[in-house]
């Protein structure tokens, strides 16, 4: 991948800089919209992954690594644990594994908002999806020999 990238890719660089932000913002919207509109952790995760992919395609591998100092392999584990713990937390109150709860709260700024335990669960899914997509792609891309 990095062999393709040359400094002359001005168009790609400029567009990537703008589009990435749009994509990331949209992916966050998708993630939160999931409960009532199209979206959710899986789709949001894929969208984020595509945004990050675009960055990797547009720029040098090293530069992106500096900008995004994540270890995606660890992120897989973190995501799985988040999803697992939301599932287990309902057990602490005597409900079966993965029982989800929701209620409506009056929050400042946001007004009446529904808060549900499905959200952290979805966050776990989101993290795993982002992480696996990038783990696979980076593993292949970094393999230079």
């Amino acid at each position: 991948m990095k062999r393709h990238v040359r400094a002359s890719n001005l168009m790609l660089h400029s567009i990537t800089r703008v589009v990435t932000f749009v994509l990331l913002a949209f992916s966050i919207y998708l993630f939160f919209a999931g409960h009532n509109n199209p979206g959710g952790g899986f789709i949001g995760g894929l969208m984020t992954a595509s945004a990050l992919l675009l960055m990797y395609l547009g720029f040098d591998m090293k530069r992106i690594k500096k900008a995004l100092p994540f270890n995606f392999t660890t992120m897989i584990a973190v995501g799985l644990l988040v999803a697992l713990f939301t599932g287990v937390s309902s057990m602490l109150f005597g409900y079966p594994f993965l029982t989800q709860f929701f209620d409506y709260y009056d929050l400042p700024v946001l007004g009446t908002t529904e808060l549900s335990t499905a959200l952290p669960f979805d966050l776990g899914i989101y993290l795993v999806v982002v992480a696996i997509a990038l783990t696979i792609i980076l593993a292949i891309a970094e393999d230079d020999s």
Partner: protein
Amino acid sequence: MSALHWVILSPFLFALIIPFLFKYVSKIHTGWFVWLLPTALFIYFMNWLPVISSGQVVETTISWIPALGIDFTAYLDGLSMLFVLLITGIGSLVVLYSIFYLSKKERLGNFYVYLMLFMGAMLGVVLSDNLIVLYVFWEVTSMASALLISYWFHKDKSTKGAQKSMLITVAGGLAMLGGFILLYQMTGTFSIRTIIDNVDVVQASPLFVPAMLLILLGAFTKSAQFPFHIWLPDAMEAPTPVSAYLHSATMVKAGIYLVARMTPVFGGSNVWFWTLSIVGLVTLLWGSISAVRQKDLKGILAFSTVSQLGLIMSLLGVGSAALTVGADDPIYSQAILVAIFHLFNHATFKGALFMAVGIIDHETGTRDIRKLGGLMTVMPITFTVSLIGLASMAGLPPFNGFLSKEKFFSAMLNVRNFEAFDVGSLGFLFPLIAWIASIFTFLYSLIMFFHTFRGKFEPSNYERKVHEAPIGMLISPIILVVLVIVFGLFPNLLSYSIIEPAKQAILPTVLPEGEQFVVNIKIWHGVNTELLMTLGVVLIASFLFYLMHRWAKLAIYNRERDPFNWFYDNALTGLTSGSQWITRLQMTGLLRDYFAYIFTFMLLLVGYTFWRFDAFAIDTANTSVIEPFMWILIPLLIGAIVTIPFLNHRITAVIVVGVIGFLLALLLIVFRAPDLALTKLLVETVTLVIFMLAFYHLPEMRKEKFTPRLNVANLLISIGVGVMMTLVALSSAALGNEAGYESISDYFLENAKELAGGYNVVNVILVDFRGLDTLLEVLVLAVAALGIVTLIKLRLKGGEDV
């Protein structure tokens, strides 16, 4: 959880801390800590002895899998008592001995963990009332035994021996499990107590004989009965404390235990009597003759163990006759008494002999009787221990082996008078075989004694300076030979406390309720047939030994290896090459072959099932209107699919596959499924990037040329799969209409807001209704991702395998 359960589990729990003791308290030999456990357990069980001797039993249950009738019931009666005392008592002595046998430089952590695993499992075997629990522990003993045999795994012989013992005993164990399941079929319970209570149901069942034979297969493989005995000599590669403990005193007697335990169920039948007697006697004879041919001290002891196990097995067979007779007639039930008595005696003298051989090996560096000689003056204590042990094994007074040998003869002589089982004129064979085997037993005892301790001491035969073992190593064998003498002089110390309750446990139905067996073992019976037989044994064996220089040159003497190994070796190589052949037949390494297998199989399976249940149906009712843009989308989709096989460049092919994906997404939009469409679009995008990346790294390959025949076959399979899937879809729609099924979506549509607080039904299903599915799916994704990373990072060099 009662104390008894904790006792069974204690070795397993203790095994958990052994590695830490070994690592962090390295100044003290780990064996000292381990030694405390069997010693404590031995004292614990000794406390129960008065209770058990008075004819009571201890039984406690905890529920394990009640739905399947599997409870962890600990049951302690006379028979179990005999075994737990052997396991903990010999265990304690063996651990003490091993402290001096194994230096601190060895991997002691592993050794003692395996040993504790074995001890716990063995306690579990003899204390479980539930057959399935017994089976689990049974297999754990096989596993621990294999681990201990291969303890010095850098030696090729050790791993081979471990594999052999594992394959043979586990195969037998599986057969035994089959027998247990058949017993369950007959009685509906896994509890041995309940099965014995319902013994008339078992005996009336047509499954009686199959169940018996399967269980016996398990017992015979474990107790090294002919022709399964071949694993035991190879197991001698284990460190000597292990051979003394597992392969002579305890584990190999698990088969004996099982047979004794099952005697109330199967005993009294013809097949049981003859199978046990014949297999036992053949093993006895074969083992004793083979032992004579061995040149390795441990080899002699191994075959000797085989033959002694055969002796006990035949006694259990003969003694089972008591169950047909009903009332207690001593000529029938006496054999059981001898079996128990000899089981105990064998553990004492054979344990001592193994330990003595271990000392010789440890101090001289060899166990070859052709090199050894003259050790009598160099190692006087070991010599004394061996002398007593060998005399007891050969059946000389005043040691315990003499008593059990005499009683064995009289039990076998009694068979001539049996009125059951059509023994008739065959009865004379029993004492005859017993007598011949005893001659050989005496002969190998003589060989072992004279070739090791007499003759001239040649210092040049040894790599090190030979001297007596340290006192710590001698304690255990000395204790054992003291027992040999004590029980030889006062056998009735055992009769009341152990033999009577054990006999009661093996033959529970022979005596009327409330009565107990009275066992009185006399040392001197006067001059009778048995004594004359012993005299004959001594004379003939001595004569044979005197002539040894003549027959020692014979080819049959010089071949040590048991001829039955031929079957095992060939079976093993045959199995390996056979399975390799089958694997190579199908594993072509070509993805398209695998696809062809998968799809052909699917086609046949689904097609057959549909044809068998006559499920093909087409019903055009309730179909929706085909909207105009479908007429554009579908031909495009089909067109793209049909193009792929004709594309020559892989990048083009991937792009066309991507086009198919995007068209599908479009189709989903048409069907008003925005979530799915969005997911599909994103997945397609990411997949495309991954494909491109992968191709960038892969070498450019030319398209493979197929023969026309292969092309036609592949075409037929693809068309078949397509047609089949279409038919399945149409049929299921038709059947759904016919049965008036409601769509499951209605439930979700109605309840999504109500139960999960969300309007997006797809997402609500993902995170709430079927959250576990989602969790497991991402888990699969994560595993796949890690797999890909591993595959890419792991660079195998030529010839390497994962």
